[in-house]
């Protein structure tokens, strides 16, 4: 057993921190292909793009004309590029039975091999996602090259239950893709970048699972996004990044999943989750709603 613990299971992940423009599809695609090429040159196994990377984030009702199906010919260059490495991109996904999801789509070997649909659609303050998207209904890791990959989209990661469930379902690494807006405050880091730093670190530490965060940077429609793409190991130690708040770039980070598993053996925090407490709370909520 001891030998298995330390048999290396390395995985190299590239975080493509890009700036996209809502509705400028060709330019966004070129940006993707450039970052994919950069990732290839580092021998990355997987390249991860931010939320709604293909279309841009602030689409409003533009999702109606910009939504994709998984076999959309506009995605062919990305599918083709995935013959060389795994690619996780964000796009508005037109659902078969109506509605559009905010989706993260995993491609590999020229095919789509997994999809996560955003569960929590922020609809407050500057956010209006509930107006344009339908929420996802499932939360489970994506199977990829024999690995279990937990994917969360932005607001999903603000609900710690999501990461806990994914790890409980066998996720060996967590990937958070975001279009995280920001404000300028009283110190040298955009406020959004600081918020995400806490969330990413806490997610990794509390689930004892390597966590990779790809955020967009730049501006869309007058909204500032604050980059800071970052990779941490299962104990919250930096593997790569954080990237700059403002500049595009590709951050490459290598993780050893065997070491991560060893960390979970030494600190079995996620395995100790008291699901019966969650169940009791869910039942209390159900009873409350039944009385309303």
């Amino acid at each position, binding site marked *: 057993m001891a030998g298995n613990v330390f048999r290396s299971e390395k995985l190299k992940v590239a975080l493509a921190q890009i*700036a996209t*423009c*809502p*509705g*400028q*599809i*060709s*330019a966004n695609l070129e940006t993707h292909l450039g970052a994919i090429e950069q990732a290839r040159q580092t021998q990355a196994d997987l390249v991860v793009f931010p939320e709604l990377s293909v279309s*841009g984030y*602030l*689409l*409003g*009702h*533009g999702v109606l004309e910009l939504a994709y199906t998984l076999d959309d010919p506009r995605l062919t260059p990305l599918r083709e590029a995935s013959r060389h490495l795994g690619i996780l991109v964000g796009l508005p996904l037109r659902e078969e039975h109506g509605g559009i999801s905010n989706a993260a789509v995993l491609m590999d070997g020229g095919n789509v091999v997994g999809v996560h649909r955003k569960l929590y659609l922020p609809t407050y303050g500057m956010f209006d996602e509930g107006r344009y998207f339908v929420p996802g209904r499932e939360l489970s890791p994506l199977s990829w090259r024999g690995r279990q990959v937990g994917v969360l989209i932005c607001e999903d990661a603000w609900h710690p239950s999501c990461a806990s469930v994914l790890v409980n379902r066998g996720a060996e690494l967590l990937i958070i893709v975001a279009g995280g807006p920001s404000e*300028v*405050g*009283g*110190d*040298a*880091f*955009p406020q959004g970048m600081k918020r995400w730093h806490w969330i990413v670190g806490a997610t990794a530490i509390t689930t004892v699972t390597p966590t990779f965060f790809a955020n967009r940077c*730049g*501006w869309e*429609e*007058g909204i*500032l996004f604050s980059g800071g793409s970052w990779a941490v190991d299962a104990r919250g130690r930096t593997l790569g990044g954080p990237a700059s708040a*403002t500049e595009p770039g590709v951050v490459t980070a290598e993780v050893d999943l065997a070491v991560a598993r060893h960390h979970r053996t030494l600190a079995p925090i996620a395995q100790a989750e008291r699901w019966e407490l969650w169940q009791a709370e869910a039942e209390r909520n159900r009873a409350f709603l039944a009385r309303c």
Partner: protein
Amino acid sequence: MLSLPAVDVPLLASVLTGFLAEELRASGLSRYVLGLSGGLDSAVAAVLGVRAVGRDKVTCLALPGPSSSLESLAHAREVAELLGVPLGVVDLGPAAETLAGILGCRQDWVRFGNLMARLRMVALFDAARRDGALVLGTSNKSEILLGYSTLFGDQAASVHPLGDVWKTHVFALGEYLGVPAVILRKPPTADLWPGQTDAGELGFDYLEADPVLYYHHDQGLSEEELCARGFRKDLVSRVLATYRRNRFKWRPTVIARVSASCINVDRILPRNPRP
């Protein structure tokens, strides 16, 4: 007493520079045009514009009228020279006098001031059309919240880099960006008639008003709560009255919705789509 929270000025300057670069790129146009008044806001906007896209892609125009001060023009020249940008001067005096005569508004300083502000808008958008440019606006958050602007005049622009920046912080930006001290120190004015100042018209200055506006608009404190936290009642009443009275200027045009595809209501779409 509550004060306005600090802002990191180098970061603010850096991100606003990025904003101007991206807006020009996304628009597909080639340059910015802005009116240099000789005041702080336009000086800061000009420096940010030059930092964002380079001095070769910023057109600066001075747009004096019959009652503009010579000092304002001199200060505009000083900023242009500092930036290494030529300053075009478009004398709007004859057009203003002619139009004011036709409209009969020469003796009404507010009407004539609005006319001047709108003629400046005409000149800037004409230059923008001629040069394939965006009009770089100079309004700041304090002015916009108070409605201290002329509808379709100084308020009209393609982009407002300072539109979410308190005037207090515009002073700090100006200092950081090297705006000449003489411009930083002089009282803010729209320079629409002799002796006009913002504080003279509003009845308070921006450094006083900004914390009141911040704790009401951003933090949601009521008039009573603001007074309980130590703000002077007369200041709070005056600032919030102006803030409420001029709110229509935040959204100057309202479209009557009679369909399920009303622009900016049922259909909010990206501004610069491209296949």
